[in-house]
């Protein structure tokens, strides 16, 4: 009782909001268990990736962010009313867009690209917020537009702007990977929202046709990364380096791996970005095929759970939000792992819950909180799957 009053005092309680007890009863503990398993596995890998005790600070920092993120996740899922999100989606989107603009005009240059915004001692990437912002804005838009299963141009121009504005800004940073990710996630939302199959085909054709245009606007290093994907051995010490070394790390892990903290590739600096984008290869080297299959299985089940939540959501906003969030999570997993094992170009996409990095961790947990939130509320109408 006290808790509900407290929530009501914050003005976040809606008329249809569920009690805490009901929420806990409906809570998707299996999904939480999956996420926790991935995060803990991730922390263990990170411990090795940062070089054990040598950079233990990084490890504790990541652990702290995980705890804070989880607290945030529980707070959102247990206390925030359903209507709150719908009310502030455009605001959230707008703030994210403004922050992106701010970065474009005067962000901090890190790793050769403008991605960061520094607020006091707090640094974060607005593009991370935008990943969620786009999903919420699109879901809200389609929800408001009413129900149709054959979306035409009349319904699509606004979503196109909602997607392309942030995508353009992110691509300009330049962060092509995140830009494409945001675009793809937006595409998935539109697809689920009911883009006509003709539209799907047309969209794929346009995507294919724009390839050369995109190529001609790519930075040299981006072109090299794509070219490198097909023949990394051509420039083993240059652009092909990441892929070659990463493949060696993954392959040398074999079936059973070299053992925790025993990966030579990981511990001898052969692997670049090994605690961030390439952390999967540390797992692969030290835990072998068994380890990679375990993590892939956990991710697969999580994504599957996401699609199920989406299909069970009680309204359009819930369905589309859950779809977008699941797509966001899933695409990141597939692209990151694909990059590490050499079937995708090297793009700066982190591995959800495992890669070191505060913004990424927070975004993923926020996304998962929203997903859980959708799930809890779907059961309100007895449509639980």
């Amino acid at each position, binding site marked *: 009782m006290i808790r509900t009053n407290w929530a009501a005092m914050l003005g976040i309680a809606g008329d249809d909001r569920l009690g805490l007890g009901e929420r806990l009863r409906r809570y998707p503990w299996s999904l939480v268990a999956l996420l926790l398993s991935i995060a803990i596995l991730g922390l263990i890998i990170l411990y090795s990736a940062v070089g054990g005790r040598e950079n233990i600070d990084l490890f504790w920092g990541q652990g702290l962010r995980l705890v804070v993120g989880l607290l945030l996740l529980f707070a959102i899922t247990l206390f925030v009313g359903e209507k709150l999100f719908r009310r502030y989606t455009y605001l959230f989107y707008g703030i994210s867009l403004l922050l992106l603009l701010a970065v474009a005009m005067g962000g901090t240059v890190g790793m050769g690209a403008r991605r960061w915004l520094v607020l006091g001692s707090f640094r974060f990437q607005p593009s991370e917020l935008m990943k969620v912002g786009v999903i919420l804005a699109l879901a809200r838009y389609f929800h408001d537009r*009413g*129900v*149709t*299963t054959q979306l035409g141009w009349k319904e699509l121009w606004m979503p196109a702007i909602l997607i392309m504005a942030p995508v353009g800004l992110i691509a300009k940073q330049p962060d092509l990977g995140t830009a494409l990710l945001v675009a793809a996630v937006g595409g*998935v939302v539109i*697809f*689920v*929202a*009911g883009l006509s199959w003709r539209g799907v085909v047309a969209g794929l054709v346009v995507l294919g046709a724009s390839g050369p245009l995109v190529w001609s606007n790519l930075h040299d290093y981006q072109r090299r990364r794509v070219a490198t994907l097909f023949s990394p051995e051509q420039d083993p010490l240059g652009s092909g*380096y990441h892929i070659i*070394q990463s*493949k*060696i*790390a*993954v*392959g*040398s*892990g*074999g*079936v059973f791996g070299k053992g925790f903290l025993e990966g*030579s*590739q990981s511990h*001898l*600096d*052969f*692997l*670049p970005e090994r605690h961030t984008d390439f952390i999967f290869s540390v797992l*692969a*080297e030290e835990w*072998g*095929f068994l380890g*990679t*299959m375990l993590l*892939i299985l956990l*991710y*697969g089940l999580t*994504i*599957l759970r996401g*699609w199920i939540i*989406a*299909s069970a959501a009680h*309204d*359009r906003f819930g*369905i589309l939000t859950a*779809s977008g969030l*699941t*797509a966001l999570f*899933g695409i990141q997993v*597939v692209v990151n*792992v*694909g990059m590490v*094992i*050499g*079937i995708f170009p090297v793009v700066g996409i982190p591995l959800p819950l495992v890669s070191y990095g505060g913004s990424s961790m927070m975004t993923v947990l926020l996304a998962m909180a929203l997903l859980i939130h959708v799930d809890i509320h779907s059961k309100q109408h007895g449509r639980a799957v």
Partner: protein
Amino acid sequence: MLENDHDLFRGESRRRLLVLGGLTGLSVAALAGRLFHLQVLKGGTYHDLAENNRISLEPIAAPRGRILDRTGGVLVDNTPEYRLSVIPELSGGLGRLLRRLAPYVDLSEEEILSVIKKSRSQRRFLPLKVKSRLTWEELSRVQVRIHSFPGTEIQTYNLRSYPNGTLASHVLGYLGEVSSSDKNAFPTINFRSGDLVGKAGMERQFEPLLRGGEGVREMEVNALGRQVRELNRTDPRPGMDLRLTIDPELQREAEAALGDRVGAVVAMDPKTGAVLAMASQPSFDPNMFIQGISRKEWNALLTDKRRPLTNKAIQGQYPPGSTFKMVVALAALDDGKLNPSEGIYCNGSLNRQNHRFYCWQHRGHGRMDLKQAISQSCDVYFYKMAERIGIDSIERHAHLLGLGKLTGLGLREEAAGLIPSRAWKRRRFNAGWFPGETLITAIGQGYVLATPLQLANMIATIANGGTLRRPTLVWNDKGGQTEIVEHGQINRHHLSLIREGLEEVVHGARGTGRKARSEFGRVAGKTGTSQVVRGKRAADGKALNASNPLYQDHALFVAFAPVDDPAIAISVIVENGGHGGSTAAPVAKRVIDLYLSRLSGGVKVAGTTNPDPGNTTKRQAPPQEEQEE
């Protein structure tokens, strides 16, 4: 209506989510498949790649063994070379540091710029060579201030050095950068490109021993090539010192005696087979190859007609001329076809097969016994001997004295010489042996070829009573004594008859080798003059080609001393030197003098040089022996 629409949407979206679920399944399957390929199927391959990534093997050079003379003196040494290097990333501004270093080590602005240029193509944590071969002053100037030059280090390398310069350079050899043929020659050595390897002489012959075993540092490195730590270390096995049988004083004397004439001297201990001196002139300075020889210098060495790089003592093959007569005499005695006191008449020439075979003494020597024939080097006498015994016997006895085959000294440059035979001629020319060729062979002309080392070994075998040893340059615990190749095949009495003749060559009134007489003991020897060009002779006996110095005859002399207890055997050749008695014998005398004076403690031996019969009997004018052939 709305509820229906909503259900319609739900149905459609569920279908689409199913599509997405299917795509998810495909993607995950693709990742799993790829991981299966990389980790399970190709795991071994990548495991090897990772191992190679991890460890870099760094060779640690072993100090090369020194080469010593028989007294233990150093002939070939290693001297440290100091190089100045800078690690760019520690230098705090490479250009500035170099300009600060410049006054101390004499760096020009050009050199500074070239070092800076070089630094761009090299990783910044690796030492960058700034200057090699620092002088002692430069070294000490930098060393005392080393702490004010960040990233600067002095590196020490061992440089091969030949402190005596050209002394015995052909024996010692020289080093050069390893070539593919060197790699084939020493399959057990793991050469690195740029390694120095023995190219000639003992440096080559004992390459594996001198080189020792290279050590290895197994360094763990990161992807940038920066060394993380040392995993393992195998210390190098230093090369072994090599002690030679070379007597440095004797070597020096032999080279000095030849002077700037082209030729060779080999001195041996007839009792052991140890080579005491092996000189070949002109020589070269092996240090040149270490300090970096310019193309011009190298070409000059290669194209010099006097062949300074050739070790004439073992590579030079010369017609032995009259020095070969002792082989013929021995063969005739052994075959029982010669009574040493038998008088054989020489009227200056011999007619055979419509050809006139001349004696060098066109007037003729008159009646000669063996001793006289040897001492006066009568050609007709030996023509007749050769007719009696034939080429087969000459060949056999030549082999017993070590001619016509490698002596086994061990230097790869060594030539085998040539003793012709019927079989050889059949092989070589597909022709039969002519009796006239036997006659020419008997005076060491025609096809016969021998190296100075073979001639020294031949005279050593005669001196020591018929024991042919394998000559050696390597000292062992028996003072360089080597195994016996032939022994007991030659009648000792016959050998002593030959030795008497050889003694008469030097000490006889009409001997051709009188200029080899020593004050320190009696010498036995044999002169030789070998024709370079087989020119026809005018009626007065003078060679038609006498005007061209390169067509001048080679002068030879072989000898041993003291006669009673031979301690040194020597052969001398002076290319285009003219007559053996006048040119080669004095060279031998200088070496023998030095050796015998040391043996006798400087005490002169009576009855060796005076009275000189040549002086009392003025009628027998010296020009006679000077013309022997």
